[in-house]
């Protein structure tokens, strides 16, 4: 191995893209495939630099587009490699064909999504429309709140992806602009800690392309009549089972990481000041910090409010969310993307479904903000708090509320 970082809990100051690159570096992927796209570009530049400097012992595949980025990594995983890449928006769209195949082959890859609003209107700024658009494909999706959480979540993602009960690809998502370029204090865990945490890679024990273990990977499956359709169902159910098992494995992996580094991130959802809350906000990603500040301000004014942050969006931790929100009188869900067909945010839609089994129907309202790089400020959250309290007080839910509409 080359001169990998020997730092012991070294503190650096970096943006989210560099934090992601460090998370990848510390996870020791064998192969990294890259193609630049705003706002991910500096992330892959960091990877290239790490490899050029010998800090990272990985093969750099600088290829002709995102479709090939994911495709070379499919080949590499089937040959036995641990892999990493990152993309965003139009790159993710171009990657979609192999992206869709990844969970079906149960390839335990980790790919960062630096989230961005997708065209049209043409936009190169933050938003989560890209990641939300691919939520049904079978990748695990985790959303990070801070630069440190990005770095820590990448090794955790490998641990989850390669767990024999899971064997699914993971997207570790961080918000374009605010996290990708936002600079903060980040602690680098020692390499030995990450090595011990991850253990031996387990990437192609289930499916491989190796003359020493010849097999056909992905024979045609299905067709009316015969065993084909039932086999197809079996594999689809297998992915569903892997997703449900992932809920447990994600918690275990976060717990293990916490023990080794002292940083315990909430694995599925984080409950903030929910103890006696009568009103709750639901947030996702980097908006959460400003929302917590707004919650504190409201608490100081004597209002009983809390917050639930969603870290893991796929698999959706429906039971945990229902449990956390079951006692409140109103819920305000803030999205950074749009669910066009339901005229609300996609997170709102999911929380709504999670609350279905509750004996009492709790009023909920959808807020959409932060599209196209817009800022969701503490003041915007004050509006969310106000509207949600009015909802609790009996006002009829109207929505969605577009937070930056009048900025």
């Amino acid at each position, binding site marked *: 191995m080359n001169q990998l970082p020997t730092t012991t809990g070294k503190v650096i100051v970096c943006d989210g893209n560099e934090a992601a690159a460090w998370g990848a570096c510390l996870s020791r992927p064998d192969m990294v495939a890259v193609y630049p796209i705003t706002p991910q570009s500096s992330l892959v530049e960091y990877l290239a630099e790490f490899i050029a400097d010998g800090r990272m012992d990985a093969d750099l595949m600088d290829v002709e587009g995102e479709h090939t980025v994911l495709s070379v990594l499919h080949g590499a995983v089937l040959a036995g490699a641990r892999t990493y890449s990152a993309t965003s928006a139009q790159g993710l769209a171009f990657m979609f064909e192999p992206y869709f195949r990844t969970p079906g082959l149960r390839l335990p890859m980790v790919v960062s999504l630096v989230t961005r609003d997708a065209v049209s209107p043409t936009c190169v700024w933050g938003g989560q429309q890209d990641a939300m658009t691919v939520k049904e494909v079978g990748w695990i999706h985790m959303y990070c709140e801070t630069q440190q959480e990005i770095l820590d979540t990448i090794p955790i993602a490998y641990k989850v992806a390669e767990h024999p009960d899971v064997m699914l690809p993971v997207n570790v998502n961080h918000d374009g602009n605010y996290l990708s370029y936002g600079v903060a204090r980040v602690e680098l865990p020692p390499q030995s800690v990450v090595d011990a945490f991850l253990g031996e890679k387990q990437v192609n024990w289930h499916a491989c392309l190796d003359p020493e273990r010849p097999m056909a990977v992905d024979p045609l499956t299905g067709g009316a009549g015969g065993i084909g359709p039932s086999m197809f169902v079996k594999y689809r159910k297998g992915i569903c*089972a892997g997703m449900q098992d992932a809920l447990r494995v994600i918690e275990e992996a976060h717990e293990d990481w916490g023990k080794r580094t002292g940083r315990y991130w909430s694995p599925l959802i984080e409950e903030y000041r929910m103890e006696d809350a009568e009103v709750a906000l639901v947030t996702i990603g980097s908006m959460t910090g400003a929302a917590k500040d707004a919650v504190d301000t409201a608490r100081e004014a004597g209002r009983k409010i809390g917050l639930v942050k969603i870290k893991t969006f796929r698999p959706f931790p429906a039971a945990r969310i229902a449990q956390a929100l079951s006692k409140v009188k109103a819920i305000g869900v803030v999205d950074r993307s749009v669910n066009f067909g339901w005229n609300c945010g996609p997170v709102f839609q999911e929380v709504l479904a999670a609350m279905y089994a509750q004996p009492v129907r709790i009023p909920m309202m959808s807020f959409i903000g932060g599209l196209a790089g817009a800022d969701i400020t503490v003041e915007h959250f004050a509006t969310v708090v106000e509207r949600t309290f009015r909802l609790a007080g009996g006002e009829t839910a109207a929505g969605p509320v577009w937070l930056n509409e009048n900025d």
Partner: protein
Amino acid sequence: MSLRNVPDNMCPIATEYTTMLTGDWRALRPVVDRERCVKCATCWLYCPVQCVVEKAAWFDFNYDFCKGCGICAEECPHRAIKMVEEAEG
């Protein structure tokens, strides 16, 4: 980890071979004239299904798989192969 430990719902892979008896596609069957065959292997070279079988003094066909395309008869430089109609029934 060996394949035995791979759950059968994990992902679509295959290690057992398919067997399809394409011989029943055949309307015409190649028949070798053993007197004329000089074992030049031209039929073997061009047979798309590679069902030509070497015998001691001539080349013959595995009729389980021969689809009856007729290339062997067409290409045989010694006109040692004839395509004859499959018997009905």
